């Protein structure tokens, strides 16, 4: 005796209406069942050999953004050959490119394909392109046109030549390709027999309703039993960004260790970013290739004269500190220049100039900027972790211990301290952490005790222990990434699939 549930019966009934054969989509539409319900029924019916389940793969193809641009403007090689013909069939590469108004990045692509397609000859020496006539529309261009017209194409429907071209276009990265599986159900002889006997659909209740509950009708209703292992539709929770999650972890560690959070402007004067930290005005780090300066607004205001004068003297001759200073003429104009801060220490020193009563423990995890191209290991803006301890008798070893305590809470326990140099700290060190996966020591952060030339102009009388380092490096270790850009390209797929508990 075959026992069938409501959905199974409805599926069979739909198949009957479809003359014994239909795709899951068609059955869903005919029966009014949800897609997932048909799939579940299909599996069950095929287990009972009442239907046969066939799977067929198909590939749908659409143009991507670059593909659409080419469809509009023509392939780069087409644009180049057109301009070459316009120029009489012989021209310097540069001239043909300019005439075609081709973006620089497209030039190698255009030249490569001109050669591959034998549309033109290139003499390398003189950099001259030659072609006799404009070539006819190629199959690839036809396919692009077709894709633009039909929006979506199923590759399996195409002839062999077009399929080959499709592969070429895919490799040129002009297409979105999606693989799908089409599932078709076919009645078996047993299935047909069962239908012939006549299916009487017993009404099953799938959704318990308020009405059933209130009226007590649920007692009589046949409540359908679910296949609890069946897959349901995926839902994605609203969620914190994985990088923000790590920032929050670091903040919590600081707060647990008794540090108070500080926060300052992203745009800073060179005075607070460099001069107040005893960085000489001709220091290479202050140059345009390292620091972003502003063209609007250009200049900011300096703090009160006594502070500015003291900083100027510290640079020029060491002021009252006993230092030799940097021995040059300090310029207030240079100090007024506005820039995107290169470290959060600009805010630290400003904070310490106003809060001088020890003990002080402050931190920040905040944005800083460096004039860098975006690569797998650098971004122009990133987060810096900075921690500061000020007290009457704190020492260099205390700095090491504080920092170790902080990073060990991130699971980074094997830390070494190598000598290092920073203009505003002495003694200085860099904390290196051993990364077993990479089998080498990686720089974690820089650290040191603020120099007397930094402290004296701000009226700070006690040792200032400071450390600072990038957050992204830790984030990449934690999130197992090897490209920093992934932290910032906001791919939903990555954010949705990255667990919050690492």
């Amino acid at each position, binding site marked *: 005796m075959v026992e069938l549930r409501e959905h199974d019966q409805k599926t069979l009934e739909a198949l009957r209406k479809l003359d014994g054969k239909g795709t899951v989509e068609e059955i869903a539409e005919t029966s009014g069942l949800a897609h997932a319900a048909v799939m579940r029924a299909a599996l069950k019916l095929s287990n009972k050999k009442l239907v046969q389940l066939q799977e067929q793969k198909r590939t749908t193809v659409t143009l991507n953004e670059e593909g659409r641009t080419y469809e509009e403007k023509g392939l780069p090689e087409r644009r180049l050959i057109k301009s070459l013909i316009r120029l009489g069939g012989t021209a310097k590469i540069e001239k043909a490119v300019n005439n075609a108004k081709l973006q620089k990045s497209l030039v190698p692509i255009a030249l490569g394909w001109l050669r591959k397609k034998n549309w033109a000859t290139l003499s390398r020496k003189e950099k001259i392109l030659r072609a006799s006539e404009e070539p006819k529309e190629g199959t690839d261009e036809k396919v692009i046109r077709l894709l633009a017209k039909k929006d979506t194409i199923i590759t399996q429907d195409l002839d062999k030549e077009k399929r080959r071209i499709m592969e070429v276009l895919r490799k040129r990265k002009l297409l979105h390709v999606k693989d799908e599986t089409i599932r078709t159900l076919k009645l078996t002889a047993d299935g047909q027999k069962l239908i012939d006997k006549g299916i009487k659909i017993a009404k099953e209740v799938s959704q318990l309703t308020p009405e059933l509950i209130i009226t007590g009708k649920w007692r009589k209703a046949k409540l359908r039993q679910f296949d609890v292992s069946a897959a349901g539709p995926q839902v994605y*929770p*609203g*969620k*914190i960004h994985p990088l*923000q999650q790590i920032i929050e972890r670091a*903040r919590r560690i*600081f707060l647990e260790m*008794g540090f*108070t959070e500080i*926060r300052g402007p*992203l*745009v800073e*004067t060179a005075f607070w970013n460099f001069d107040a930290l005893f960085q000489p005005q001709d220091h290479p780090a202050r140059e*345009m290739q390292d620091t*972003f*300066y*502003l063209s*609007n*607004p250009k200049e900011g*205001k300096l703090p009160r004269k006594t502070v500015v004068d003291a900083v100027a003297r510290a640079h020029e001759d*060491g002021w009252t*500190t*006993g*230092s*030799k*200073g*940097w021995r040059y003429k300090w310029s207030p104009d240079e100090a007024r220049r506005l820039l995107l801060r290169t470290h959060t220490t600009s805010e630290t020193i400003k904070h310490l100039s106003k809060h001088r009563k*020890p*003990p002080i*423990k402050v931190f920040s995890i905040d*944005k800083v*900027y460096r004039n860098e*191209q*975006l690569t797998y290991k650098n*971004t*122009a*803006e990133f987060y810096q972790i900075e921690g500061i*301890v000020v007290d009457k008798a*704190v*020492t*260099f*070893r*205390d700095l090491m*211990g*504080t920092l170790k305590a902080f990073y060990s809470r991130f699971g980074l326990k094997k830390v*070494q301290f*190598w*000598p*290092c*140099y920073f203009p505003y700290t*002495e*003694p200085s060190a860099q904390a290196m952490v051993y990364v077993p996966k990479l089998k080498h*020591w990686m*720089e974690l952060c820089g650290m040191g*005790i603020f120099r*007397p030339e930094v402290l004296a102009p701000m009226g700070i009388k006690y040792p200032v222990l400071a450390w600072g380092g990038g957050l992204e490096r830790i984030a990449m270790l934690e999130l197992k990434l090897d490209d920093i850009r992934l932290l*910032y*390209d*906001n791919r939903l797929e990555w954010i*949705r699939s990255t667990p919050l508990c690492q």
Partner: protein
Amino acid sequence: MPVITLHEERFSKFVGRKLTLAEITEWIPWLGFDIEEVGEDYLKVEFNPNRIDFCSYAGVARAFKGLRGWETGLPNYKVSDSGITLKISRAVSNVRPFMLAAVVRNLELDEEDVVDLMEMQEDLHWGVGRDRKKASIGVHNLDAVKPPFTFTAAKPNSIKFIPLDKTDEMSLQEILERHEKGMAYKHLIDWSPTYPLLIDRDKQVLSMPPIINGELTKIEEKTRNLFLDVTGTDIEAVEKSLNVLCTSLADMGGEIERIRVEYPDQTRFSPNLTPEKMNLKTTFTNNTLGLRLSTSRIIECLERSRLGARRTEKGVIEVAIPAYRIDILHEIDLVEEVAIGYGYYKLKPTFPSSVTIGEQHPALKTANLARQIAIGLGFTEMMNFTLTNERLQREKMRRKEEEEVRLANPVSAEYTIMRQDLLPGLMKNLADNRHESFPQRLFEVSDIVKLNAKTETQCERRLHIVAVSSHAKANFTEIKSAAEAFAANMAIGDWKIKATEHTSFLKGRAASIHIRNEEIGILGEIHPEVLNNFGLENPTVAFEIDLEALID
């Protein structure tokens, strides 16, 4: 940062002991080097230009021997008299006022030594000379020319000579216009009516500082006796460069000889390798490092850092600083030398006993509450850069030009201005994720930067929240409800929503948000043209609120 490649065998020769690569790799970081690359038989290390004396094998070996305790204390360099005079003409005082020089004799340079010497010059040009501006070096074969020498200045077309590695004579003018070094460095002198020139007794040209040497005095492997010149605009940079160079060459086996340098108004002898003196207190050292070292132990540590040290009174050490060190400005710098000599690896971390209570910054407290509510409403967080560009911020958003915080030296067309609102970033996120499943509800809580002439920096950082919802049925009601739920949970009291017009939003479906008559935000349906600009297919709604007023 400058880099030096240390070959195991050659470095061993300089240290005077057979070293393995593993041993060098293990110890060298404790001197302050960063390991860049470990090769088969070499090590590539990076050093900071404050220790510019690390630019040669000799300099690194000196410090390495000290660290290991194989040779400690101040290195001694004997300087004898060369009897050679260098005359500095008044003509150079405006264009390149300073020159100092030295002679190093009886060298036996091999091919590697010559390479070492070249690299040393380059590092000094960059690290001390600030790309030849403050100081630049010329190294000459002394035997090819005849003293006395004169540093003078000549008219651009008055003299011709064969520049280094060329075959034809060129005038000074031609060198600046056509020679690769001339073109690279002409800005240092081309504003002057006369160009600097170093000549010998017979008016043969040794060099045209700071551009190029003459072919005449070219260094080869068989060169035995060197004449070194350093010219510049900063006497200290000139002197230190010369000291680093002479002492390295002396460590390579040369004998240093002094030159009489006659300036129009004074005469000095160069090189001057007399160590500078500075006092260091025992208590200051121990208090800074957190150690309890005796004065004699501290002296020992200083000596391992290749400094001279002697006790002058109780708890006070007089430290002699070698002439090649450019980085000792203050007593505190000597404390670090003690730490390096002691060994950073021996410093045991301790934990300070300072008791404090931690506290969040109010802005970040507000930011986190905003995040919590947005997540509760089903939105997923995005993190975009604060740097952006006009195309994204304005053109794609259908906005008119406005004044914004702008970079003077952008590194790419992508990042030219600071964002003044967060919405365009989220539109880009939607565009980048259009192949992911819908609905897509995204938010960001972050900073924008606006001009504000009242602040010290003429602009200000403000905390914003933005949220977008994009799916087939997104509409004004959905986002208004979300914004209201957000406001209610942030305890934004008497807020008002008024109809408004905004070019990024659909007319009649945009509203501004106000508290106490101050506009703090906007909400509505994104204009379809904006959706087209981003290649979005689904209706999209958004709100953005300035959170500054909510920070306490």
